[in-house]
Structure formats: C-alpha cells, structure tokens
C-alpha cells in the first residue's frame, strides 16, 4: 500500500495552498495513506491548518529555530530521515519544492518525477516536457521509492476535512548543516500583480518600438489589474526587463486572460502561454502566427487600439 509524505509549504504561519494541491494529487493514488510534515521554527499553527485538509491521516511537526526560513539544505537531511517507511515523498512544484525535493531525492538515492500533472497509478505519472510541447508518461518499478514535485496548476486543492487529523511532533536526529545562511528576502518590487501567478496578463512585442512606448501597456494593465509581460524580442531589444519575458526561456504562465500586443507568436513564445484560458492577439500583420492560437484576434495598429481598449474598459460600455 502507498504511504505518502508531503512536505508543507508555508509563510508567516500560513499554509500555502500548494500543500492542499499536493494532497489532491496524492489522493489520486488509490488507498494511499497521506501524511504531511511541517518544518518551521514553530510548526503548531501551520500543522493545525494542515490537519484540516481532507484526506490527511497525520501531520508531523518539526519545530526548530533553523527552519525559520525553510532552506532546502537545512531541511533535506531531516526530511530524508523522516521519509523512511514512505513509498512516495511529494512537494509542490513551486520554487520551494523545486529547490528542496531533488536534494531529498539524492539523499534517499531515489528517482524524482518533476511537475507531475496526472496520476495513472502509484507507479505511473504524466508530466510535461519541452516546456509543455510534449507530455511524457513515466513509470518506476514497484517497490522503488519515488520523490515528486506536483504541478500545482493541474490539481484543485483538496477540501476541508470533517475531523482534524492527529498532529505528532518529530525530532529527527540528522544534523542541520551550517554552511548555508539566510540573509534576506524582498517581496516583488512592483504594485502590479506577479506575472507568474496573475489572472490577467497584458504583453508586448518588438512592435512596441521602445521602452517608453511600453507605457501604454502599463496603463492598460493598471486599468485591468493585470501583470505586464513581454516577448523575447522585446526583452532583447531592451524595451522590457528580463523578468518580464514570457516564453520557453522566460516565464511559462497560465492566466485566465492573456492579451498579446504586437507579438508575432514565435514558437518559443507560444509555449509560454498555451495554458492561458483566453488569448487575445492584436497585430497589424494578419498572417502573424499568434492568430492561430488566439481566441480573439484583431488586426490593426496597436498604438491606436491599446488606448481605445483602455477607454472602452474604463467607460464600462
């Protein structure tokens, strides 16, 4: 029978929703017994939230001052020790989980399946490769312990439990290394939504022509409460910052609404947006490849259309 250990992600005493998504993924494995482990300076408040996720049989807490900032190198040896007796060890495919889980897998001498998007059985999973341009089904041998990260966008968070799971403190003996020290964390610098997780994204390509001209997109984005992205061509031309790049070598995003202005739709850009719910393309070239994937296409001059669209949204008509 499968026994699954999920490492909780949290910040400021709040459980991250990615944890309940990992639980949802784990419940797809028939008959699995699911435990959550919380590493924190003081884990009890977070553990109480984890114990209320439906499908969780037990929550294990590791409270230690060293776990204040959830550093992978410090958690990994202790998590590897606690993983004894489990068939699967899951973490979210967030920067927290991506950093931590391979380190745990190496310590356990276990293979890792990254970004699992679907569960076929306790030993068989589907995951995207080539930036989502292909889906691979992978399999481990029966009896091989598997470490995995869970693609959070692929699972609806597990609901609330009818009765809370038991909470148990653990005190792993594995030494916590001193070679890695937390210095600081600074929250994203912009008042705009984060490009990676924004529900709406307004994006510009080389046709914008200059960094100054990007202002019309910022203005539209602020009106809509959207994040601003850019094509690689626009970033390479210096019109937009590197961290705004959407595409295979930039950010791969899945917003509810993606609006592409003056972006032709190079393959590497399209792979970054194809999980968007609705794609709008505005381009003066009616042959632009972006129109092949757009739900709504509009041929025209973006310098005219962007302010017009903003005005129409503002007026509510």
């Amino acid at each position: 029978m499968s026994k699954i250990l999920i490492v909780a992600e949290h910040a400021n005493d709040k459980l991250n929703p990615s944890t309940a998504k990992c639980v949802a993924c784990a419940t797809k494995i028939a008959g699995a017994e699911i435990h959550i482990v919380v590493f924190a300076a003081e884990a009890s408040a977070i553990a109480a939230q984890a114990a209320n996720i439906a499908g969780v049989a037990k929550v294990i807490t590791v409270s230690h001052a060293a776990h204040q900032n959830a550093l992978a190198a410090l958690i990994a040896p202790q998590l590897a020790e606690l993983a004894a007796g489990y068939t699967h060890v899951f973490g979210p495919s967030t920067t927290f989980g991506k950093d931590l889980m391979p380190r745990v897998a190496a310590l356990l001498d276990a293979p890792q399946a990254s970004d699992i998007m679907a569960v076929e059985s306790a030993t068989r999973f589907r995951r995207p490769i080539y930036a989502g341009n292909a889906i691979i089904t992978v399999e481990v041998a029966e009896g091989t312990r598997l470490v995995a990260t869970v693609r959070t966008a692929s699972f609806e968070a597990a609901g609330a439990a009818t009765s809370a799971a038991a909470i148990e403190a653990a005190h792993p003996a594995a030494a916590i290394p001193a070679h890695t020290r937390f210095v600081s964390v600074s929250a994203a610098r912009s008042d705009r939504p984060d490009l990676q997780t924004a529900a709406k994204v307004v994006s510009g390509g080389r046709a914008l022509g200059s960094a100054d001209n990007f202002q019309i997109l910022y203005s539209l984005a602020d009106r809509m409460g959207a994040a601003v992205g850019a094509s690689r061509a626009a970033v390479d031309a210096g019109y937009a910052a590197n961290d705004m790049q959407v595409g295979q070598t930039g950010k791969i995003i899945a917003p509810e609404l993606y609006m592409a202005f003056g972006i032709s739709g190079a393959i590497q850009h399209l792979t970054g947006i194809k999980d968007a719910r609705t794609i709008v393309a505005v381009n003066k070239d009616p042959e632009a490849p972006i129109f092949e994937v757009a739900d709504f296409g509009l041929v025209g001059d973006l310098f005219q259309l962007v302010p017009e669209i903003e005005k129409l949204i503002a007026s509510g008509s």
Partner: protein
Amino acid sequence: MKRILVSIKRVVDYNVRIRVKPDGSGVITDGVKMSVNPFDEIALEEALRIKEKGLAEEVVAVSIGPADCQQQLRTALAMGADRAVHVQTDASIEPGTAARLLLKVVEREQPMLAILGKQAIDDDCNQTGQMLAALWDRPQATFASKVEIAGDKALVTREVDAGLETLEVDLPAVITTDLRLNEPRYVKLPDIMKAKKKPLDTLDPAALGVAPIERLKAVKYEPPAQRSKGIMVKDAQELVAALRSKGLV
C-alpha cells in the same frame, strides 16, 4: 587553482518546434538543430565573469552524453571556457546519474564553484544541481539572479515565488542559474578558431565508477492537447464586448 566547473547540456534548440514521433516513442530529434541549453550558457557566462574579475583562475566545461556533445563543448570553449571534459556515453542519463557523474568530475577537479543551469529545456527536470549539492554535501543556491564572491563565501540572490531571497553560502558550493542572472556573450569567429586548440578530455562513465541506471522509465510520449483557432473581431469595441461577456474585463 581556483576553478569553476560549468555543466553544458546538448539540447534541441529553443527555436525548434517540438514534434512527438507518431509511435509515441519520443520526440523527433533527427536533423533538428541542437544547441547548448540556454540556462547552461548563462552558467558559463557567469563563470567567465567571475574569472574576468580575477576571482577564479580557470573555467572548465563538462558535458555528459554522446559524441556529438563535443559540438556544444566547442561552443563553450569558444565562449571562453579554458578546457572541456566530455563524459561520453550513449546511455539515457537521468538527473540522478548526471549528478553522480558530475560528482566524480568535481572530485577530480576540486572546483570552488559548480554552476549549472537551473533546468534543461528538454526534460525540464530542474534536479541535477540540487542532487549534485546533496551528494557533494555542499550548499546549493538555486535559481540565482545575482552572484557575489567574497573570499571563501558567496552571496547569492535567488528568484523565489515570494520575490528575491539572498543566501550566504560557504564555498565550495553549487549555484544554478535563472534567466535574469546575465546575458551570455556572442561567440566571435576568431574565438571559434581558437577553441579548436583548447584541451577537451574524454572520460568513460565506467572508468569513473558510475553505471548509468534508468529508474524512471519513459512509457510513452504524446503531444499536448491543442488549442483551437478562435474568431477574428473587427474592432476594439467588439473585442471588449466579447471579453466583457466572458467576465474577463
């Protein structure tokens, strides 16, 4: 010698449209343009900049894979790596095996830093750097957007979901690169000529005492669900009306 080790993976070029073979046994790579994994180019650029600041003396590029990997190692030498190491194998290499092989090279080369791309754009695993750090029992600073070397420590700024996190790590350490760390230099023709004379050693995995094992077997490959083409609207008014009817604006 103060040395930096950089891993170089040969991957399908990022501009190539990926197609799954009709029989589902893989993706089509015959006759397809191959390149250095873009994140590895960033890793090499960072190593070269550290060397150019006088904080390291030698940059060694390592690649694991078939004979053709030497093309990418020559590119790395043309960019400025001092020498290259090719661990030659036709076996399928999963990240755990890559990490064990890189550890063997680390033990031979004794670098102050190993810089790897955060992930390869083919298998998108994002594992090898972290696994190498674990096996080496050294710090890891993943998804780096800024690296400062100060004596026997490095201050690394990381791109995390919450924003930017800064870690201080003791050297030697493993760093994996994010997109914003730098912009790799272009290779100039004279450098390509010079690269042909730089040393490139070939190693056999068996001689390193590592047997490639495949524990995560590929069962099948499929294309992703396709998007269907939508509708063309005639003006901004019609566009906004359509978005409004879907509750999007």
